[in-house]
């Protein structure tokens, strides 16, 4: 299978700030690829290089087998893009913008457009200036999903959507994958990526630090647990896969690797549980733990 995106050793500096410092990225055709990194790690810069908006200082990049800078216009017929911060023209209606983008890409599926407007609950007659952030994002999403393209590049596309609309978004991404389209989904929310993506690349400070299937990256997905117990905890420290254990009287905080969760819970219930919360670690926590220590 050919690769939809290949990037190797990409460098890009803006004056003295180095945005990309040897970034690598491989996206297979037909997969949903998560592009993860904290704010300012170089996700948007990479995407802008892939769209031919920026010119890389060095390194190689290929989009659908072609040069994203030299062949930008022909490539963009087969690519739809949703920026993280959508700005619209104040006096054009949302419907006009959707159709404009569609025509500029070379076609729009009318029935899919109607269906998407319906599902995203978007009013296409409102003018650009009257949309909220989330609704501006919906305009760009409808235009992208209704376009007949091979590759979708979505840059933090859900940052303004409410949870219901995020559901709709996730269904749409799955439908696109089922049609055989390739999707590059940039995000700083790990759970969103876990839900949708076949493979993930994690970048930090302009470099790729991890890349692979979610199973490969399972070691990253620890759960943080905090519990209030009826008796004193015992034996937790000796369990494998437990990290950052913090015991204060009957209160316990810890992080545990996914495959050791069962043993930890058993140990907690042995002591008697009064209350328990568990949540997946945020990406920032992951970074703090995995990569800051390594430096």
């Amino acid at each position, binding site marked *: 299978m050919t690769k939809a995106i290949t990037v190797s050793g990409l460098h890009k500096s803006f004056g003295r700030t180095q945005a990309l410092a040897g970034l690598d990225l491989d996206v297979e055709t037909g997969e949903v690829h998560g592009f993860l990194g904290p704010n300012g790690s170089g996700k948007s810069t990479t995407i802008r290089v892939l769209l*031919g*908006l920026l*010119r890389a200082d060095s390194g190689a990049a290929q989009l659908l087998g072609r040069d994203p800078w030299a062949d930008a*216009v*022909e490539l963009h017929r087969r690519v739809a893009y949703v920026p993280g911060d959508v700005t619209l023209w104040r006096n054009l209606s949302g419907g*006009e913008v959707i159709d404009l983008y569609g025509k500029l890409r070379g076609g729009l599926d009318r029935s899919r457009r109607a269906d998407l407007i319906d599902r995203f609950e978007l009013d296409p007659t409102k003018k650009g200036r009257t949309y909220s952030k989330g609704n501006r994002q919906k305009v760009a999403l409808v235009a992208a999903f209704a376009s007949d393209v091979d590759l979708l590049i979505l840059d933090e596309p859900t940052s303004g959507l409410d949870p219901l609309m995020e559901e709709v978004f996730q269904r749409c991404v799955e439908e696109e994958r089922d049609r055989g389209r390739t999707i590059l989904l940039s995000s700083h929310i790990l759970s969103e990526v876990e839900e949708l993506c076949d493979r993930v690349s994690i970048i930090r400070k302009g470099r790729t630090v991890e890349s692979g299937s979610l199973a490969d990256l399972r070691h990253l997905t620890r759960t943080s647990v905090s519990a209030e117990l009826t008796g004193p905890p015992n034996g937790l420290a000796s369990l494998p896969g437990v990290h950052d254990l913090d015991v204060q009287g009957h209160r316990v905080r810890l992080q545990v690797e996914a495959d050791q969760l069962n043993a930890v819970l058993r140990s907690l219930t042995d002591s008697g549980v009064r209350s328990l919360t568990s949540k997946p670690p945020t990406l920032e926590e992951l970074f703090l733990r995995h990569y800051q220590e390594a430096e």
Partner: protein
Amino acid sequence: MTATALPARAGHTGSRQLAGTGALLGFNLRRDRVVIPAWVAVTALLVLSLPGSLRSVYSTPAERADIARQMLTNSSLRATYGPVFSDSLGGLTAWRIGGYAAILAGIMSLIVVVRHTRDEEESGRQELVSSAMVGRSAPLTAALLTAFVADSALALLITAGLAGQGSAGALALGLGIGGVGMVFATLAAIVAQFTDSGRLAKGLTGGLLGTAFVLRAVGDSTTNDASSPATWISPIGWLENLRPFASERWWVLALFAAAALLQGFAAYELAGRRDVGMSFLPARPGPANGRLGTAAALAWRLQRGAVLGWSLGFFAAGVAFGGITKGAADLVGDNAKTREIIERMGGQSGIEDAFLATMVGMFGMLAALYAVSSVLRLHSEETTGRAEPILANAVGRLRWAAGHLTIAFAGAALIMLLSGLGLTLGYGAEPGPILAATLVQLPAVWTLGALAVLLHGLSPRLSPLSWAAAGLALLLGWIGPALNLPQTVLDISPFGHLPKLPGGDMAWGPVTALTAIAAALVAVGLAALRRRDLTT
């Protein structure tokens, strides 16, 4: 639910309406710390440099008396510069520069007020500010006070700088110029309540400022003591009627105060009756399906309003100035210096032709402002992030730019043609020579527009310099000839190289050369645009 559950809406009775005004004023002045001092300094320097320049052009009292007498008798010259009330150096300064300095003060004031009111609401920043301890009337008050500080500084500089020519006259001129500023500051505050776009509010208020100038010109062409009703309607006409350096009529200052207070009051009343971010001319729903299908169609959709506004303005101003051209034949006496000035501005043949040539040149220099603003749509589309998704479609940078540039360069031709048609209609003459004269301006207009293409192509950060270039051309064209500036200085402006039509001889050399320069600048600018990173 009781009737008292909701506070009265339009009331200004609350003691906290103005909370935070001081902090906002300080914040506004900090944001404008470059623009306001620069604008005030340039305007003041323009005024303060006049007595010295005038002394070198009209060195004897007899010559000064002569120019005053000509203004008394020649209506088209009066239309351009206004009547002379005193042949002292101070009086001539007020005559020659007062109206233009007042226009500059008006532009500064309206921009300052809209920038700190409607622009803030449009961008959504006002919401954040208003969520703090900020009274409902505080933003408008702070904006008007910011304009007041700027206009006061200008008035003070002019009063102090011209005191040597007579302190009473200097004070009157300073207060009058600042007064015109405040009239347009408060007018902008009203307009900003009606539009929901800052750009439109500035455009409309600017249009009213232009109307005030045309009214004064038409009024002054019919009377030689600024007493026509048309002049009295115009705040710029009030400045003439204040008669700085010519036994000042101080009561005219009350007009400025009354107008500013009334308009300010109206603005507060209107502002108290609407919600933050809303306007009295709200957005209507648009079509659910769009017909725009190309980058060029989008560019036209974005710019068509501006093209229409400039077209109407140029045509109307053309008719007005065409109508007062006949009076140019009234010229009696032949002061060599005046003739020389007119010839330098407009050409050597008949005085009517010279006047028309002057007007055509003015339209050309204003059209350069249109061309620059139209080209710089590229800049605003890029810096606001709207160009990015367009260019992420199957649209190349050249095709994206081409739409806007076509509107800029063809639009300049269109508005020049309309000004020529207006002049022809108002003057009632053969259209050929006048239309040719307006079109001959285009190479210079295009050169300034092309400079904007080049600067934007090199880097969006350089783009604002194209405004400076167009402004310099305007200043050299208007003030230069009267200041006896050497031709080498006047030649900095592309307009300085054009043949003086109608009346003069057509010179293909400079016209061709300027067109070639413009084409080269555009080519280099576009090549640079293709190569550089998009600003994000």
